[in-house]
């Protein structure tokens, strides 16, 4: 199984080749190289997943395989960073998700990015991203994860800033990087804390169920909480940054300045769920050692989910709507993990979270790629420039509708099954939570169909060119992903992924299923009334709840708060005063020293008149004095 390392190395090689030779190659050649290499990676990943899922069970429980591991950097005898490949159910599942979506995006971009300046650069960055994302999910230890965590951050930065002449894109890329970097600081400190007390980075050891390694940490407290709780909470901060949890979500909507396929790959399907994956990866640690942190994850997830859903209802840029819907759906996954127990049917939440991650990746990628096709056709992101597109873009229309139904949770599409499991888990955790999540599910249905109707129905807007369907390279991925979205719900997901590795039989709870479908249908119905034809209800509602609407439209002014903190406090307050202090006080002191020395020398130099007669006079006076002294004493 050593060949599994190729899954990471192949995209990296592609990155290096395209990065060094890209300028010399023809644009389409580099696109083809990138896509082909991704296709090969996909095949290897599928094969790996197949071999793993068919062969890794011992007594009905999936084992962890480490087919490849080398020491990369050694800190102490116990702490060393290894680079390797860890196969277990979730990493094998993530392999499939990442390579599938990535391959789709590679193919799609051949059409979408055609003729763009920097085509080869784009493919190089895509390869870099794929490499780092795959490295992240295959990490055998938490430090390897951190390494690739940073690398996905950088690839995201590079891709958001792909249109580097656009000021918004530069600002967005900078914001994305710095916000996630700030979160990564938490992650790093969390790793330091955890490794200090457990003396290991290895996931195998951390999640082995051997609780003795945590005994030293459990007894130590810092500011009233156990250090272990601090460690896991800080690690979660890292995850929250990448997964855009409140209040670190602000970078994700802006990240939509990047090319649309990038948004589909990075900011919808793969990188943003890294936080969820991180929590899932360390789930036994969270569950057994620091359950209070895990509950905190659930509450934060629920809040973020609601918060983002409300904002999504009033945004007018279609990519922003999708971005907020992504935040909201990731909130769902976090809730699922947060409310989950361990083992057997207690582990519903864990399984459901992973299942939702899987289905969401597919249908959200589909939504974004669909949005890309729409933007490609009308050259605008604004809803007001769209409307009535269902005739001109039939394939996009159908696939987009499928994805909307899936995210709204209508059977038999995949989203229904995974969301239903999440709701079941939350209901069994706390009914109130269950109802809140159901309400958010209803909101989801509403805003998605608001989007759908505004794009494809309603009155057509004026266009310079008649919108037309995208080329085959773009529609093929749409169709494939739509097909996956239709059937993915029927995968016996619990057979592959569960909290303890044993079989988990999914069975639908009728009451929960019916409730959620009914709520979703209500949401869709309301959207239909409001937006299918031009209606005055939304405007009137807007008038009535003017304050709320405005606040939501401005994303509850969180960005302004950040701007205030960064611009006014850090930049102008701290930084400016430190720079001033340095130039005037510290350097001033040094210059002052020089100044005083200089003045002193000027004062003294008067004595050095150069007049020998004066010297002689002083000399004689001195001589006289000494003579007298000698005579007297």
């Amino acid at each position, binding site marked *: 199984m050593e060949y599994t390392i190729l899954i990471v190395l192949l995209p990296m090689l592609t990155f290096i080749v395209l990065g060094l030779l890209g300028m010399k190659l023809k644009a389409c050649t580099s696109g083809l190289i990138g896509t082909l290499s991704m296709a090969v990676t996909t095949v290897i990943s599928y094969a790996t997943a197949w071999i793993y899922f068919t062969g890794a069970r011992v007594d009905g429980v999936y084992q962890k395989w480490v087919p490849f591991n080398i020491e990369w950097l050694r800190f102490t005898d116990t702490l060393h960073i290894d680079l390797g490949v860890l196969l277990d159910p979730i990493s094998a599942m993530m392999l499939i998700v990442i390579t599938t979506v990535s391959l789709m995006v590679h193919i799609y971009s051949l059409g979408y990015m055609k003729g763009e300046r920097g085509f080869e650069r784009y493919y190089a960055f895509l390869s870099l991203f794929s490499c780092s994302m795959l490295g992240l999910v295959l990490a055998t230890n938490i430090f390897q994860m951190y390494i690739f965590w940073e690398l996905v951050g950088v690839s995201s930065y590079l891709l958001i800033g792909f249109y580097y002449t656009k000021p918004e894109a530069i600002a967005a890329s900078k914001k994305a*990087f710095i916000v996630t970097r700030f979160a990564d600081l938490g992650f790093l400190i969390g790793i330091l804390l955890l490794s200090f007390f457990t003396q290991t980075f290895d996931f195998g050891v951390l999640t082995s169920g051997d609780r003795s390694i945590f005994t030293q940490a459990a007894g130590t407290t810092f500011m009233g909480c156990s250090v272990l709780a601090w460690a896991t909470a800080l690690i979660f901060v890292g995850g929250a940054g990448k997964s855009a949890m409140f209040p670190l979500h602000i970078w994700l909507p802006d990240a939509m300045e990047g090319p649309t396929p990038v948004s589909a790959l990075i900011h919808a399907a793969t990188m943003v769920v890294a936080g969820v994956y991180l929590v899932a990866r360390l789930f036994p640690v969270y569950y057994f050692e620091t359950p209070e942190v895990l509950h905190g994850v659930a509450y934060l997830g629920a809040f973020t989910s609601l918060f983002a859903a409300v904002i999504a209802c009033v945004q007018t840029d279609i990519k922003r709507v999708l971005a907020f819907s992504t935040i909201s759906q990731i909130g769902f996954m976090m809730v699922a993990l947060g409310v989950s127990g361990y083992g057997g049917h207690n582990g519903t939440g864990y399984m459901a979270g992973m299942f939702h991650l899987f289905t969401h990746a597919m249908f959200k990628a589909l939504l974004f790629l669909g949005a890309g096709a729409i933007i490609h056709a009308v050259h605008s992101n604004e809803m007001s420039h769209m409307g009535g597109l269902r005739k001109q873009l039939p394939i996009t229309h159908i696939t987009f509708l499928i994805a909307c139904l899936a995210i709204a949770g209508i059977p038999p599409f995949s989203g229904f099954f995974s969301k239903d499991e999440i709701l079941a888990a939350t209901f069994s955790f706390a009914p109130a939570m269950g109802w809140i999540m159901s309400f958010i599910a209803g909101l989801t249905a509403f805003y998605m169909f608001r989007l759908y109707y505004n794009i494809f129905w309603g009155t057509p807007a004026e266009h310079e060119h008649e919108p037309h369907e995208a080329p085959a390279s773009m529609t093929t991925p749409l169709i494939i992903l739509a097909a996956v979205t239709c059937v993915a719900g029927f995968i016996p997901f619990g057979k592959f992924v569960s909290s303890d590795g044993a079989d988990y039989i999914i069975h639908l709870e009728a009451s929960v299923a019916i409730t959620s479908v009914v709520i979703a249908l209500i949401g869709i119905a309301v959207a239909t009334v409001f937006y299918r034809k031009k209606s005055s209800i939304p405007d009137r509602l807007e008038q009535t709840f003017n304050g709320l609407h405005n606040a939501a439209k401005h994303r509850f002014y969180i960005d302004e708060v950040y701007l205030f903190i960064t611009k006014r406090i850090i930049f102008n307050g701290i930084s400016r005063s430190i720079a001033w202090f340095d130039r005037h006080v510290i350097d001033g002191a040094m210059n002052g020293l020089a100044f005083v020395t200089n003045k002193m020398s000027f004062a003294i130099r008067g004595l050095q008149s150069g007049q020998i007669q004066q010297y002689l006079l002083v000399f004689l006076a001195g001589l006289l004095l000494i003579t007298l002294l000698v005579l007297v004493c």
Partner: protein
Amino acid sequence: MNFLSLFVLIPVLMTCAMFLLKDIRRIRAVMVTGASLLLVLAVTLTVMFLGQRSAGNDAEMLFTADVLWFAPLNIHYSVGVDGISVAMLLLSSIIVFTGVFASWKMSPLPREFFAWYSLLSIGVFGFFISTDLFTMFLFYEVALIPMYLLIGVWGTGRKEYSAMKLTLMLMGGSALLLVGILGIYFHSAPEGGQLSMNILEISKNTIPMNAQYLFFPLTFVGFGVLGAMFPFHTWSPDGHASAPTAVSMLHAGVLMKLGGYGCFRVAIYLMPEAANELSWIFLILTGISVVYGAFSAIKQTDLKYINAYSSVSHCGLVLFAILMLNQTAMTGAVLQMLSHGLMTALFFALIGMIYGRTHTRDIREMGGLMKIMPFLSVCFVIAGLASLGLPGLSGFVAEMTVFVGSFEHTDTFHRVFTIIACSSIVITAVYILRMVGKVFYGAVQNKDHLALTDAVWFERLSVIVLIVAIAGLGMAPLWVSDMIHESLAPIIEQLIK
């Protein structure tokens, strides 16, 4: 003749050759040959060193030689290397090599420039191979003095002021250092017997505690001034901003490392008890350096000032890690010296090349250079990413080793300071991305810049060598890290003793 002495001999010959040659082509030929020889020599040394070590030679210093030089004070010319010196020699030779190419079109007076440049290299190489305090100090001074002329004659901006400031502050530092060294010398044989300047011999004795209390701070601050320790760092922004490209590279890349290296080799190794007792004071100062330098860099508008303050922050991390007094953190410190040396040299080289074209270093007057000079811009972005600690480049390896090592300290005070130091990685990201965003991305600010050209071959060569070194260290750090790690064992033994 000892193999190591070649490191001094080659630059000496280069300096002498400068006085004989007139033709600029010949001068370049000599410089390139000499610098390449040094590079080859350093690589050979590394290979031989690793070979010796794996063959089981576990002497503290290898390739040693000793010649009595001045009997009354027992001064020897004694040389020898361990893993740390080997790493430093490798770094110096890379930077001297690339510096030659970065100053290819040096004018006016190229001959004199290269003569002083070679003299500077004599000092640098001599310092790293010396194991005798006196010769070490001698080479240290040889490395400092040419700086005054190099900045004062070939610099830009307020060069006379900067040259004076830099030289005076560093001389002030070396005055403290001289007192420290003499103090060590006169206490080197507490039980009587021959006083010694040899580091290895002194380390076998314990200097009396009251002497250590006095001379440890003197020595540490003396070297710390060169390592840009707060509040003695202000020579760095002005000095680096005024210095010509190659001199900035060599100064920030290698000379500032002399400070860190000296702290290890002299202050901590010879006075371990005082180090244990007093390290917390300096830890606070260096901790301030790390964060303070980073914050100051955010506000700067001159590219060289940004990089100089970033150097203050990064070099602060070197001293910070040294003061943690454990093997992992110290390994990190040496790695950080290597990494920062390469990175900052790359930065200064690129800034020099950009300045040579745009004639401004003010980031507000530039923009959109990515379109105009893609090669330089991409390299600059790579340097920036290395500086903010991207995995796969050297900065990450060094910083992580420092952080993990520092956090291994069992004392809460040290761990809290580690967390504060960690926060610099975020601030670094802020100023690096701000700089990159303003200068290279966006629309072209100045229409005159559209006519500028990208890098030419000698510039490319110099930049590529540095990038390869950065990426090499970042991708395969284990051998360097191991080499340094085991060489630190004697120092740690001293500290535990």
